[in-house]
């Protein structure tokens, strides 16, 4: 909630004294004296495994680097950007922050995140080895890495096998295309008192990545440069397909603010949403219904283009020694050890695929948890989620989201709704490019 309120007003003087030094200082080569850095993470604001695992990693890091002390600061994921921004305004200088991808361009342009190539060129190349290349791409703006991909997940199709069986469907052979989703959804709607299909793309819970995944799987894209294209042909067709699902009854008209609970309560047959909730669903389904996980559906035989939800690490520190400390922490948090912990305990994807087959790291866990497979398979086709640029980027994204929602759930012509919103939103985009 804070995200907006933070900007509410301010004391110019303080902000101005916090003006960054004019000259870029070189990052220190090493740490020779004790130093304290701050690490802002939304995983720290989530009780249980998320917090415990992240704290565990921080403690491991401090044990390995006794000169560096990490001050962990947690804030919910929808408020963390505002938290970071408020601290910059107040002169508190955050050093390292975990931010979501939608804020990528803003972090690079406005928050003053460091380009890692400028800061640690060779070290970055060495560290990036073994990381999923398309994952790394996600943190780039104009060819430079401002965000180092960190926690990650893709949309997968959660399936309630009991509902499938009740509707006379085979849960071991889940729908692979949208046409099959429609068929299965209608079958569930007609033969059971449960709901067919819901995409976690709309409503108060952030699902833009699900929406973008569907659009891009149809060959569409939401913007090209600074020109909005979400109402153009392939992108709008994808939305029209969802509208058709809705009109057919395959689409579940449930409260979008509680879609996860509707699924967990065993009332929904198919749910397309982030794989990050997989562990929670496994727990919720235990003893209640049988859970299956499938890859996201495709448009005919076009390959799907799953994009990601999740976060990258941004280095915000201006002090050379703190930059070094923050960089070391960044490397540690994206190491084989860290991803083993993050994947097995929190449930995000490992961005280092070599650890999946390594018995020293993730192999035993992957063998025991086959449900991660569709998700791992999708990683190879990972397509960058589009963040928007300019001071109004959040508003543009909202207008697009609202229009898509109205196109699917309203009564007007979906193409017309999208077109209207695109014209309105284009006015808020930066003029260039």
């Amino acid at each position, binding site marked *: 909630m804070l995200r907006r309120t933070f900007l509410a007003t301010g004391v110019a003087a303080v*902000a101005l004294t916090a003006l960054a030094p004019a000259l870029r200082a070189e990052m220190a080569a090493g740490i020779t004296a004790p130093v304290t850095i701050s690490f802002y993470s939304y995983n720290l604001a989530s009780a249980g495994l998320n917090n415990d695992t992240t704290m565990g990693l921080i403690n491991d890091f401090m044990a390995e680097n006794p000169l560096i002390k990490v001050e962990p600061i947690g804030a919910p994921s929808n408020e963390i950007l505002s938290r970071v921004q408020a601290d910059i305004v107040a002169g508190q200088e955050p050093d390292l922050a975990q931010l979501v991808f939608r804020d990528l361009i803003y972090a690079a342009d406005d928050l003053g995140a460091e380009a890692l190539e400028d800061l640690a060129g060779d070290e970055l190349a060495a560290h990036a080895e073994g990381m999923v290349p398309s994952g790394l791409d996600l943190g780039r703006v104009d060819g430079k890495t401002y965000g180092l991909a960190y926690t990650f997940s893709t949309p997968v199709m959660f399936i309630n096998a009991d509902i499938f069986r009740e509707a006379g469907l085979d849960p071991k052979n889940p729908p692979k295309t949208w046409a099959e989703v429609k068929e299965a959804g209608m079958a569930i709607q007609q033969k059971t008192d449960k709901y067919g299909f819901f995409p976690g793309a709309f409503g108060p819970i952030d699902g833009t990545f699900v929406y973008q995944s569907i659009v891009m799987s149809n060959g569409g894209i939401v913007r090209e440069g600074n020109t909005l294209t979400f109402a153009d042909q392939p992108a709008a067709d994808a939305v029209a397909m969802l509208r058709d699902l809705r009109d057919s009854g395959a689409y579940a008209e449930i409260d979008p603010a509680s879609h996860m609970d509707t699924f967990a309560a065993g009332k929904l047959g198919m749910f397309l949403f982030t794989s990050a909730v997989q562990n929670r669903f496994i727990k919720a389904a235990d003893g209640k219904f049988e859970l299956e996980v499938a890859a996201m559906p495709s448009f005919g035989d076009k390959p799907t283009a799953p994009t990601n939800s999740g976060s990258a690490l941004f280095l915000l520190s201006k002090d050379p020694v703190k930059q070094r400390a923050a960089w070391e922490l960044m490397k540690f948090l994206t190491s084989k050890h860290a991803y083993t912990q993050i994947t097995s305990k929190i449930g995000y994807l490992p961005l280092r695929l070599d650890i999946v087959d390594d018995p020293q790291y993730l192999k035993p866990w992957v063998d025991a948890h086959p449900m991660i497979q569709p998700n791992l398979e999708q990683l190879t086709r990972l397509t960058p989620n589009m963040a928007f640029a300019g001071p109004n980027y959040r508003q543009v994204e*909202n207008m697009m989201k609202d229009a898509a929602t109205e196109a699917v759930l309203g009564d007007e012509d979906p193409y017309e709704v999208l077109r209207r919103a695109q014209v309105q939103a284009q006015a808020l985009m930066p003029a260039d490019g």
Partner: protein
Amino acid sequence: MTDAVAPSAIRAPARLLPRVQVAPWLYLLPTLAVLFVWIYLPLFQSFQLSFTQWNMLPTKTPKPVGWANYRNLLALPELRQAALNTVWYVVGLLPLSVVIPLAVAILTQDLTGRLRNLYRALIFIPMIVPPIVAAVLWRWLLNEDYGLVNHIIAGLGFPTVKFFQNPDIALWTMVWITGWKLMGFSTLLLSAANGTIDPGYLEAARMDGANRWQITRDIRLPLLSPTILLLVMMTVLFGAQWSFVYINAITDGGPMGATTNIFFLMWKYGFQTFSAGWSATAGIMTFVTFGLLALLFLGLSRKVAFHDN
């Protein structure tokens, strides 16, 4: 009645300090200091910011834009829907925040002590539930698929209700949640006021042969009128704002803007864009609008207060 107290109260300090009275200002100092430093100073800074375009970050500099922020916000097409919704929020809240609590305070007055206290204590309970918990609880209870309320509705043979998805119902659902939380607060205030009514008046009226309704109408209601007015005023001034937590936690203003009120709209458009100028503008506009309304009420309350002499 301030006037009635003043002459006698003034005399003593006036002897010591002939012209400027220091004592009242000393008594006011703590309050004024806090309000000045933590409210009026930032408000003034906001006022200045509302004429600039800036995200407050040291990487950018404030750009003066004159009245553009005000013009832009006022030109928003959604403003009319949100303004109308705001009125509905207030209208919908009044029965929950004033009428029902008033009835409870008066009805329970004549009940025997123990039961009366029990009722009042229980009605107050929603007040102690943290707002965010109230939001998720009601979202759950009213859910169409697994919520208790719809389960009961279906059990009675009625069709289930889409409390949050139906644009015609969603706003009233939000009003209900806001009001549910407020009932206890209003009941407490009104019961406190009702309790301070001198029983002598009531006894005298009863001796004169007045019945319950007459006592209520001619004695209780007039004596309660300052508190009633206070509650009406608070509902008008803050009702829509109190709904903010629930709109934000449950519907995000949807479906299709149906639950968006002026506070949520300003928040969404003004604060979502990371533009300090816009949000400052929204804040100033909100403050001025409701400030004028408040002054109106203050004038009105003086009249009512005079009336009970």
